[in-house]
């Protein structure tokens, strides 16, 4: 009988259900006192974890026992019982030579330990370390992180092996060949790990960690910080005056602003505002989510190149970031900017040979809500009996929605009488013109629904949008993209499913609550944790996030002008995506891999060089205020914190490593940066600080956030 027999597991789980007896001793250690280190042996295809430093050193040396190398996986433990009140001993076993597995096994469960001790195929070796147990529901206390156990049965007993991981992404990927046994222990977190996780949260939920914000999150905890962010007052885009589209020359000739073209007929002032708010604003999470949503519900300055229109459009996402998705869909649909961009505006009922315009109908379905394939709740494609994916709509569906979206025109322009087709105007939502609306029955919509003839056009619109909103694809389709934009480009189906579940029901029976979705994205175990070692985890920082995070790390003050101007050279001209397909697609597979890395679609040799050159100007140059903009301030990094450390290059790197890389800088990389700092005279601490900063922010460890 193997210890993995279902009986044993059941017994184990029953024991858990009874609860563990909490004993209270004074805690003697503030920080975890031991580290379990994982090794891998390719020849054996076995993992092995040890918390004994001398054993780890022996494997590192590779002389006594060869073939084992570190995987990078580590978790904290208690070296002695007295280090932690309530900790339990962890029994370590080795397969009895000749009969048992050629492998080690650990258990923190007393009953399981006792059972395995009675099994002649296992030999008890020691109490390896002490650790916490999960509660009756399998949850770990807040100051610990779950340890997941998986069992690889192999073809023979000697091939079998257990693996212990704190990274849920990696644990899930063991499925298939291995049996996932779930949470078996709770590993204590060091203060360094807690800090690293906070920094990672700020990479995901803000435009970049700042020392003061790290301290704030550590003080109140992540859930309370998210509540603070949900409640923070929204930043706003500056209001720009109405200008007549397409009449720049005439209008600006008479306008007192010598920069009339730039200020009103381009998105310059909005780009400035975006970066100013991103770098200095308090509503960081709202801005991040708004930026993400604006890359799903895309419009572009290539067509909407007037500040008053695009400013109002972008404000929809700041206002709606934490609202309901159906309300957001409705606001976007009725937006005169979206109406203009995807031609729902002045889309009339069939007239002779002219058919209703299909543009908004198609992209609403394909890009904004459900995508082209039927999805399971975890975002994977549903397959038919022949193993083929199933289209979520067809051409007839598009035409059905195109007929619903008829009859809307621009809002009435002050001073111009209302008409069936009002002149172009983005001040407000589109208005209904019943006479241009198709009053026949309209369909098929999704799930073969047909709208009855003769309903008021507002009723038709609401019904059609609700038809889309309740489609089962929306949760996984939108949830997955929010994960991609905030956390990682190629999320696991399990992660998507958990977020989609929050979309489908926020816990109070409400569907589409974006606040619940965002919280689910950010507190998920696949988002949280101090270190992520899955080789496909993370994402390339897109240019806007790369620049803003660099600026925030040194507490820069900025009017935003410089950052807005960098977009073209970095491949992301803010608010001017090439098409409704955004700057980059959510499906982009990094060439030569099977990993989805959307932002890599806009990273290439040219933009790579320009990332270095951005960092060069930011770190070593002067970004002076431009003279043509009232109130311009330029951009001023605050180097004082780093300069103060420059006499100790290691301390300087430590500071940057903690704030920018959540302490993932490798020893090799550190040595190279140290050498470059050493080449700068100690008499020039500012140049040392700038050198270290430049090398860190241009390194792939920073470019790729994980």
């Amino acid at each position, binding site marked *: 009988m193997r210890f993995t027999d279902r009986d044993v597991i059941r017994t184990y789980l029953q024991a858990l259900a009874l609860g563990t007896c909490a004993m209270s001793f004074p805690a003697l250690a503030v920080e975890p006192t031991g580290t379990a280190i994982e090794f*891998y042996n*390719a*020849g*054996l295809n076995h993992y*092995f974890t040890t918390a004994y430093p001398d054993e780890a050193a022996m494997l590192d040396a590779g002389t006594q*026992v*060869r*073939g*084992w*190398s570190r995987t990078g996986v580590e978790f904290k433990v208690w070296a002695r019982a007295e280090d932690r009140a309530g900790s339990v001993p962890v029994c370590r076993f080795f397969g009895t030579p000749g009969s048992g597995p050629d492998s080690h096994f650990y258990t923190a469960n007393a009953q399981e330990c006792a059972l395995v001790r009675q099994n002649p195929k296992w030999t008890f070796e020691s109490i390896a370390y002490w650790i916490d147990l999960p509660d009756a529901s399998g949850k770990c206390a807040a100051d610990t992180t779950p340890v997941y156990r998986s069992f690889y049965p192999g073809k023979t007993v000697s091939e079998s092996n257990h693996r212990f991981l704190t990274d849920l992404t990696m644990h899930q990927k063991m499925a298939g060949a291995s049996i996932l046994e779930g949470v078996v222990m709770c590993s204590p977190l060091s203060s360094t790990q807690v800090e690293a996780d906070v920094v990672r949260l700020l990479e995901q939920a803000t435009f970049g960690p700042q020392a003061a914000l790290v301290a704030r999150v550590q003080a109140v905890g992540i859930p309370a910080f998210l509540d603070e962010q949900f409640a923070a007052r929204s930043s706003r885009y500056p209001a720009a005056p109405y200008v007549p589209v397409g009449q720049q020359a005439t209008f600006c000739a008479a306008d007192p602003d010598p920069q009339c073209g730039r200020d009103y007929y381009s998105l310059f002032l909005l780009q400035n505002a975006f970066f100013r708010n991103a770098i200095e604003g308090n509503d960081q999470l709202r801005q991040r989510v708004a930026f993400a949503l604006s890359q799903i519900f895309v419009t572009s300055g*290539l*067509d909407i190149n007037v500040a008053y229109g695009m400013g109002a459009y972008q404000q929809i996402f700041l206002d709606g970031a934490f609202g309901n998705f159906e309300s957001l869909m409705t606001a976007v649909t009725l937006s005169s900017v979206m109406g203009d961009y995807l*031609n729902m505006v002045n889309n009339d009922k069939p*007239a002779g*040979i*002219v*058919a209703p*315009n299909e*543009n908004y109908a198609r992209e609403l379905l*394909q890009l904004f809500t459900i995508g082209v394939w039927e999805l399971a709740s975890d975002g994977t494609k549903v397959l038919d009996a022949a193993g083929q994916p199933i289209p979520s709509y067809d*051409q007839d569906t598009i035409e059905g929605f195109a007929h619903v979206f*008829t009859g809307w025109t621009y809002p009435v322009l002050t001073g111009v009488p209302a008409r069936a087709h009002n002149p172009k105007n983005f001040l407000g939502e589109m208005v209904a013109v019943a006479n241009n609306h198709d009053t026949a029955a309209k369909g098929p919509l999704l799930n073969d629904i047909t709208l009855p003839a003769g309903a008021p056009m507002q009723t038709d619109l609401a019904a059609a949008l609700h038809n889309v909103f309740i489609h089962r694809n929306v949760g996984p389709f939108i949830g997955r993209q929010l994960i991609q934009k905030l956390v990682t480009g190629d999320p696991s189906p399990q992660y998507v499913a958990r977020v989609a579940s929050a979309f489908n029901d926020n816990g109070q029976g409400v569907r589409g609550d974006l606040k619940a979705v965002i919280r689910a994205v950010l507190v998920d175990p696949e988002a949280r944790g101090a270190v992520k070692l*899955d*080789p*496909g*985890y*993370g*994402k390339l920082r897109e240019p806007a996030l790369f620049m803003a995070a660099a600026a925030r790390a040194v507490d820069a003050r900025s009017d935003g002008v410089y950052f807005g101007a960098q977009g073209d*050279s970095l491949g992301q001209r803010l608010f001017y995506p*090439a*098409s409704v397909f955004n700057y980059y697609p959510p499906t982009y597979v*990094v*060439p*030569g*891999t*099977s*990993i989805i890395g959307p932002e*890599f*679609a*806009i*990273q*290439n*040799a040219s*933009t*790579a*060089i320009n*990332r270095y*050159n951005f960092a060069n100007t930011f770190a070593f140059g002067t970004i002076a205020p431009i003279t043509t903009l009232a109130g311009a301030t330029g951009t001023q990094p605050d180097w004082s914190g780093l300069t103060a450390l420059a006499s100790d290059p290691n301390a300087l790197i430590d500071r940057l490593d903690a704030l920018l890389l959540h302490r993932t800088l490798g020893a090799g*990389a550190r040595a*190279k*940066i140290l050498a*470059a700092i*050493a080449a700068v005279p100690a008499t020039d601490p500012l*140049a040392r600080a700038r*050198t270290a900063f430049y*090398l860190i922010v241009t*390194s*792939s460890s920073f*470019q*790729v956030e994980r």
Partner: protein
Amino acid sequence: MKQPQHPDRRAFLRRAGALSALGLASRFDALGALATAHAQGTPAGDYKALVCVFMFGGNDGNNTIIPIDTAGYAQYAAVRTAASGIQLAQASLLPIMPLRSSRPYGLHPALSELQVLFGERKLAVLANVGTLVQPTTPAQYSAGVRPLSLYSHSDQQAQWQSAVSNAAAGTGWGGRLADKIQSLNAGSGFPVITSLDGTVLFTTGSSSVPLTIPVSGSFALAGYTGNAAANARLAAVNALLAEDTGNILAGNANAISAQALRLSATVNPILTGGGSAIAPLFSGLTTNTAKQLLQVARMIEARAATGARRQIFFVQLGSFDTHNDQLRRQDALLRELSPALKAFYDATVTLGVASQVTTFSLSDFARTLQPASGGGTDHAWGNHHFVLGDAVKGGDFYGEYPQLILGGPSDAEREGRWIPTSSVDQYGATLGRWFGVSAADLAAVFPNLPRFATSDLGFLA
């Protein structure tokens, strides 16, 4: 524990999901390795280039090339009525007479340069070409024989670029052609593909790695003044690029940067230096398309410096998704395209490579013959394309021009969405054969090619 075994973290990474970060870096260096493997290449003067011009959004072929005989134009005008707001007047069209046709056609009025090139037999038209899973009849279409996600921009762009319409593809046919022919560039190690539009699917190969150059500006690191501190910093930049973090994405970021830094010394002088003989041909042309084609011409002009013998360039212009206001919008786009193509063609003549450079167009799809509300058109399918160069058997049409009848024999639906009569596979294979890729290799580049009657549409000598 058993002993002894070999440490192998690579295996761990592979087990965990995919290529290691260092594996990617070596992918970017594949040509560097080839450069040492092949000392000498093919004879001097052996040079060919393909230039792909992608019209993103779906150019309306139905307003690009129109029959102008009485019956043909009447068919057109019966659907694209004057009232629809998208009719081109018969008299405004620029007449062309295909060599082997008895029917005159007219080009869109913005294409005056292309009209001249057609008359000079430098330009050919490939009519009604598109994404196909096999030769397709209307009945087969109705029975479900069709490309995946037909009428979707992203999917149809991908299929035009991959030449695979029945599955998702990870590589494009430009990239796969490059895979097959990159050994000819081994002497210099210069990439086969140079893109002016980043890494798109068309340029993505299995082993070849494309280069992206800027449309304007420099291609060099700033801030390296040569002092000791700067030199040490540059050394650190390069050393950091060789660090394996174990993360595939970080490895890919490193590989992209490393390629850029490796090629900067070759490419930057080409793009920023003076003395180009062909730059004056582009004077007065300020459009993005002209700027891209000027960069291409500069790279061809500098082929001795790059050492490239085979090159594929990717150039793009966008905003062809004319759902509304089409007459104005398409006119502006074609007015950008036509003179830029002419200047580029003239540059190849000046450089003496006009028969060695073939330029061709691609686009998402055509647009419905039926007008859509707002003076535009919706997503359709088979489209007309241009092929330009002295190797082209120009002044002629290839493929079959569709019948402009809603719901007629060419229509997949009821709105004038033409079922293509030639496939992207055939189009690409014809170009690939000319480029010097063997029949056996073409079969690998275009896996569905055997489904079609011919692998050569005949428009290249």
